[in-house]
């Protein structure tokens, strides 16, 4: 049986969702019998393969122009896109920044931070530009939303195993959490 290809990537995220993914423990090994993780932020290969995957997973909020690229690329290369975690689903904690003027926020982060000496705001042409923090579904179409900060390992396992059974997972009970 060919394995189902799954790619994951993160945007503006804290890695909490990835920790939860690893928290599946031995169930992760069972899953790997049936799926192939082509690329993830915590393995060697980072980008989803050009030939595409069945399931794409994004965690984190869309926070800058690079996030937009990653998001669009994932959407193009996967059939089913999962927004994983509160940031990807709702925008999450990053949206607090939306209340501030962008220059004000950058100044606070790169110059005024208590631990910073002689700070400068990065301004290279090569790096991305910050944008208003937003959930993934504001940039591309999302097929499945898995909220939670982070979503529990059980919820992630449930979603992946339902998909493997050819069903659309519906989160209920303890699998559906916003915090």
């Amino acid at each position: 049986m060919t394995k189902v290809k799954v790619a994951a990537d993160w945007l503006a995220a804290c890695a909490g969702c990835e920790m939860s993914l690893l928290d599946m423990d031995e169930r992760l090994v069972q899953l790997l019998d049936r799926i192939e993780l082509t690329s993830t932020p915590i393995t060697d290969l980072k980008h989803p393969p050009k030939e595409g995957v069945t399931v794409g997973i994004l965690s984190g909020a869309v926070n800058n122009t690079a996030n937009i690229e990653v998001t669009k690329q994932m959407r193009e290369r996967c059939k089913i896109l999962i927004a994983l975690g509160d940031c990807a689903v709702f925008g999450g904690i990053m949206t607090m920044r939306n209340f501030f003027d962008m220059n004000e926020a950058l100044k606070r982060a790169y110059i005024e931070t208590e631990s910073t000496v002689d700070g400068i705001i990065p301004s290279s042409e090569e790096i991305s530009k910050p944008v208003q923090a937003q959930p993934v579904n504001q940039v591309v179409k999302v097929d499945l939303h898995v909220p939670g900060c982070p979503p529990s390992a059980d919820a992630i396992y449930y979603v992946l195993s339902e998909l493997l059974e050819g069903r659309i997972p519906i989160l209920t009970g303890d699998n559906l959490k916003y915090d």
Partner: protein
Amino acid sequence: MDKMMNIRINGRQVRARSGQTVLEAAKAAGIDIPSLCNHPALTPHGACRICLVEIERQRTLQPACTFPVAEGMRIETESPKVVEERKFVLQMLFSERNHYCMFCEMSGDCELQALAYKYGLDHWTYQNPYPKIPVDGTRKYFIMDHNRCILCRRCIRACGELAANHTLGVKFRGAKTMISADMDIPFGDSSCVACGTCLQICPTGALIDRKSAYTGRQAQVERTKSVCMFCSVGCGTEIITRAGRVLRVEGEWEEHNKGVLCVAGRFEPVYTKRDRIQTPMIRKNGGMVAASWDEALDTIAERVKGTKGKKVGAWTTCKTLNLTMSEFVAVFRGKIGASVGVLEPTLSELELPSGGSLNDLLSADCILVIGSDPLVTHRVLGYHIKRARMKGAQLILVSNNSNEMAQFADKKFSRDELDKAIRICQNSASPVVIFGEGTNQKEAQKLAGLKRKAHFIPLFPATNGYHAKVLGLQAGLDVSGMEVVYLLLEDITLQEDLMKQARNAQFLVVHASYREPITEIADVVLPALLWSESEGSLYNLEGKKVPVRKAVPLPEGLIPENEVLTQLAARL
């Protein structure tokens, strides 16, 4: 008798009373219709639209909380159409403001969140570009975070209907609507009396208790039903604790106060910073030295035994629980023939009836207040007077001094004009007389003329005054001729002149919870328990015996007052 009618809810035959709303009828039949703005203690409002149901022959879905039942009505509460609309309403509620659960104090206990879980809301259909709304932190005890507010107006109704204070209202219209205080001033500067009823009734994290925020969710805390011990109204409370610590106090909906408390019962007790007495203490070489219970009790017993009963005086505050007060009398009067009294007036010399209730107040058409200022000393009763006034009762104030009630009084009389006030009561259908310690015997005799007609509510100056009155205890400290004086003070502070008087005794025992000037000048000090540690009962001003329950474990080495008295008696 209300007329009964037959309705069908989800195909089930249900009997409903005429005048019931669809929501009430469903609830009585055990059928759950979700609601947010509705609360059993408040008038239905129909603000949130979560309770929409399908009613046959109605053009659109109708809010169950405001729709009255009618004979033969057929209602669907979870039909596909209803569920779809309810999800839409939820999406609209989430779209207006900041409802990110992950950084909300109420997450886990929030009624809005619970509904979103129930209806499987896994993302927001209408992404939320929520506006930046300020947080009002100007009140001492709790914070208003407008960002979490769903404009259900429970707080406004609690403020108006339950506390009868009418501080809260709304400003602006539509999505810009905002809860506001008085004529749009900061909550802390407003006419708010900090009763905290709005805080208790808020379904989301819009109102946050400063002290207990983030200290534990409902599932992590324990709730102990008890009674507020800070005045004789004796409001039903729930003491919320975790790991043996009091987090906050809430009003009990099922008791006569119907969930309402005042600042003195809800907030002040958990903010107290007074210095607790942790062990018995004995005066040695001019200072107070920690001692064992045995040593302290032996010292007292020795001194008492060496003194004639008549020369021993024992006074207790009325704040003690029933058993302690009875034990106090049994030990000091019964066993050694000492003079026994209470520190606060018991209103017994007025020889007026008692037994009037807060419910009697709410159904009164005329309320006479004399010798008291309920809004200062018995606030929850004061709120009930204001509520009765809203329902049309006439408030008659008899007072020569400035009185918080004055601004709400329909008629004000000086004490010389009491006859006029009584005449108005005589001409009304269901008068209630509220009398306090400022009432004199002559006035009481005149008021006695209303005995047959009116309900009487005595405002005992201290919590268990009713029991002290029943026990026939003499009020007032009088140590003249006393060699040994025993004062059971609990957590009260003794006035300076009384303190000086007490110190005239050769030997002074003080039994109290906190270090106070008097505990520094006593010969023996015994530690007493606090309101949250006591177990027993007391009488509220309605004359009803109510159970006081221990919410936290006793601090190490502390013994309940009645047991201390028993141990002392064993030595005499």
